[in-house]
């Protein structure tokens, strides 16, 4: 009745093929997204389980007689097994990578990698443990006094900072309000622009440059584990001159008495990516002859990576780890990769993180590269977290029960936050 060439309706093969194709893209949940032009077959049946192909055992010395030479099927003879065909040129559309064990950089010992999308469970504590650091919850006082000095202040500082905030929050767009990732970025750039106008009175600021999208790599051993930091992180302000040392030799020697806080039973390498294929590299992201070798400040924004939004504690951990990574990469270039118990000239790097309103300020001093044991001299960290720049920046006033609780516009501006920002910026240039 039906012509032989027509495909049979409701055939088992067609059903299976269709369902397998559908299930490969995510199961029945994706059915709503696909357009069904075929009305003749059922597409909502259960997906049959994947069957593993029969394992063919090869017994050495016992070769099967195949019909390969005869070029046609002979019942009773085995099917010839031909070697898998491979292209003699590399086509990126059909690239199959070799299994992990056969890759040239495969190593037995795993390496734990901290990348820019790592969401560390224990946050700051984990970062302190991994970098063998002692934390102090305030910025160093001599740094804060830098900004008190009227020479180091911008003329009309308060007014200009408030204009910068209003520009970032209200005036930067044709819409009513700016989106969060846009305004946090614009605010940071506006504040940096304000600080940089001091170059006329502080010429050392001219010996710095910005860099983005540079790839950092640093490796170190912590106990039994090999750890690495890799990735592109935020905006780097690098300088021709190193930052001055923040704490003297006695304080550095005192850190040997500090005991690092553990968070047993959680392992310190939790949430770090465990890989077996790696190269132990140490690179600051620049060539060795760069005129700006010293990392001065890193600027992080919470909204930089839209796919990975970190909670405040995890964001601070990321700041600590990447600051440490920059310092360690510099130490390895200066002093070699062999662990040093105490560095002659400790390396200082700063970091600032923001979400558009709250700022986190960080100063990191690398005192030692001998990080395998838990005792001995530790690195130092001064961290001030969740410093508000202003309370509210509302387009429409908040009115509760016919009373204005928060007026429209900028409310609750705090000038001290910008002084700290400026102090960190001017550190090393005064």
């Amino acid at each position, binding site marked *: 009745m039906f012509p032989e060439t027509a495909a049979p309706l409701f055939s088992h093969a067609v059903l299976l093929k269709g369902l397998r194709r559908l299930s490969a893209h995510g199961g029945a949940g994706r059915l709503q997204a696909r357009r069904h032009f075929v009305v003749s077959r059922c597409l909502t049946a259960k997906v049959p389980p994947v069957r593993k192909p029969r394992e063919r055992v090869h017994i050495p010395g016992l070769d099967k007689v195949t019909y390969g030479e005869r070029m046609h099927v002979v019942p009773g003879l085995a099917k010839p097994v031909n070697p898998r065909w491979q292209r003699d040129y590399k086509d990126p559309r059909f690239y199959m990578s070799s299994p992990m064990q056969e890759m040239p950089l495969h190593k037995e010992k795993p390496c734990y990698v901290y990348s820019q999308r790592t969401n560390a469970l224990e946050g700051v504590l984990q970062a302190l443990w991994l970098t063998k650091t002692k934390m102090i919850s305030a910025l160093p006082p001599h740094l804060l006094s830098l900004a008190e000095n009227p020479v180091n202040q911008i003329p009309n500082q308060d007014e200009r900072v408030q204009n910068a905030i209003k*520009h970032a929050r209200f005036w930067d767009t*044709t819409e009513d309000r700016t989106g969060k990732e846009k305004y946090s970025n614009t605010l940071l750039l506006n504040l940096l622009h304000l600080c940089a106008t001091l*170059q006329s009175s502080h010429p050392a600021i001219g010996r710095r440059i910005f860099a983005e999208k540079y790839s950092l790599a640093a490796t170190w051993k912590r106990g039994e584990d090999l750890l690495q930091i890799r990735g592109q992180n935020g905006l780097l302000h690098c300088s021709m001159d190193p930052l001055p040392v923040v704490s003297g030799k006695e304080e550095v020697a005192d850190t040997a008495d500090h005991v690092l806080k553990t968070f047993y039973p959680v392992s310190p390498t939790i949430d770090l990516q465990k890989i077996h294929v790696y190269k132990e590299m140490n690179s600051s992201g620049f060539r060795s*002859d760069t005129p*700006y070798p010293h990392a001065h400040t890193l600027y992080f924004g919470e909204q930089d990576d839209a796919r990975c939004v970190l909670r405040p504690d995890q964001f601070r951990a990321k700041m600590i780890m990447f600051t440490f990574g920059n310092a360690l990469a510099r130490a390895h270039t200066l002093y070699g990769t062999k662990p040093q118990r105490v560095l002659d000239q400790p390396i200082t790097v700063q970091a600032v993180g923001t979400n558009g309103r709250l700022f986190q300020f960080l100063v990191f001093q690398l005192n030692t590269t001998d990080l395998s044991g838990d005792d001995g001299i530790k690195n130092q960290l001064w961290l001030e977290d969740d410093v508000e720049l202003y309370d509210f920046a509302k387009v429409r006033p908040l009115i509760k029960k016919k009373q204005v609780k928060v007026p429209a516009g900028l409310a609750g501006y705090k000038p001290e936050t910008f002084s700290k920002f400026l102090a960190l910026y001017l550190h090393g240039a005064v």
Partner: protein
Amino acid sequence: MAARTRLPLLSPKNLPPFRNRKLVHTEAAVKEAVYPPIIPSLTAKSKSARRRQAEEQVQKIRASTVQEKLDLITRIQRQKFVVYPQTFARNPDKWYQHFTKTAYIPGLPEKFTPVQEQPEAGESSPTAGDHGSEDEAFTDIRSLVTRVILQEHWHIKKRKVFLYRQQEQVVGPLLRNLVTGLTYSLAKHNPLLLLSSLDLNPQVNFYWRRGERIIPKGHRKGRLEPTRFQIDDHPHSQIRITQQLPQFAPMDASYTAEVPEITLAPNLMPLFRRQYDNHIFTGAKLPDPACYGHTQFHLVPDRYHRDRMAQQQQSDQVEVFLRTNGLASLFAWTGAQAMYQGFWNHEDVTRPFVSQAVITDGQFFSFFCYQLNTVALSVEMDANNPRKNLLWGTESMRLYESVQDGEVVGLNDGVIKLLVQFLMNQP
């Protein structure tokens, strides 16, 4: 009672005295109008009513604040031509000059003469010390430019760049570092830059009307409709300042300039119509104190890079593209600045608005200066308007030949000097 059947002759003696006074030479008494003036109706279905509605609207806009003016001018959405500063069309500069009533003058204004001549107006007493410090400052700037170029091309370890992403990933950061580095180094010589505002990847929009057409088809067939244009531009970066830059040439000088006339309809360019919100925006809203423009920096995207144009046998369009970009972007920026000061179609600018632009693809730089003399471009105001807008521009100049082994080969000092002069422009 005797009814008088005959009235006596009215003799001049008996006439009431007031009537007499009327006949004698007196000044006509100014009579106050008892009835309101006779003007066409406002709501009738007549041409005079339509005219009166338009006049009322113009009076209403004149009488309102600047923010209200902008809102009233951009209130109604209609189909408009979207003008792209970076366009694939062939020879778009003539078309855009016609739309914006701009005359092109090759070369730069006298202020930016090539540096072989000694600028006498600047220094009062040029001493050897001054020249020495100038040379020193110039050497510093030169080394800054070298370092910036090397940083992006040589020092940063980068992966191989994706196809057609070279400009965005390599030249973008280079230009940003160059702009910031130069601005802050020159801030001590130009106090305007100390109070300036630097925008990275801002938005500039402008909406205007020019010309008319008769609607060919539809329920409004046969009626006159003004042609509306909108520019939505995204420069790479721009510097906005709190004071206005001085003019390059007096407004009267533009009366004799030539603007090409194009009789064809704009959609033949090709230019396409769309309808969406009309925006007039300089880069920041009205309350921002830095409302005047100084310099814009534009990046040539990969699509219009000269190597790709050469592959498509369109090398002659490279300069045309740069000129068009400078023209459209600067017209939109200066127009928006003028609107922010309250000038619009029916209230023309009383002082010229001036801005500058630098367009680059990383290696080649072109410099443009624009002076906006008139915003009155619509049909009713353009009939008696002798003013024209002026664009000065250069051809593209190479900044450096290449980067080899950590060295910049063939750095062109002239281009650096022009960049410095552009940024040093101040009233």
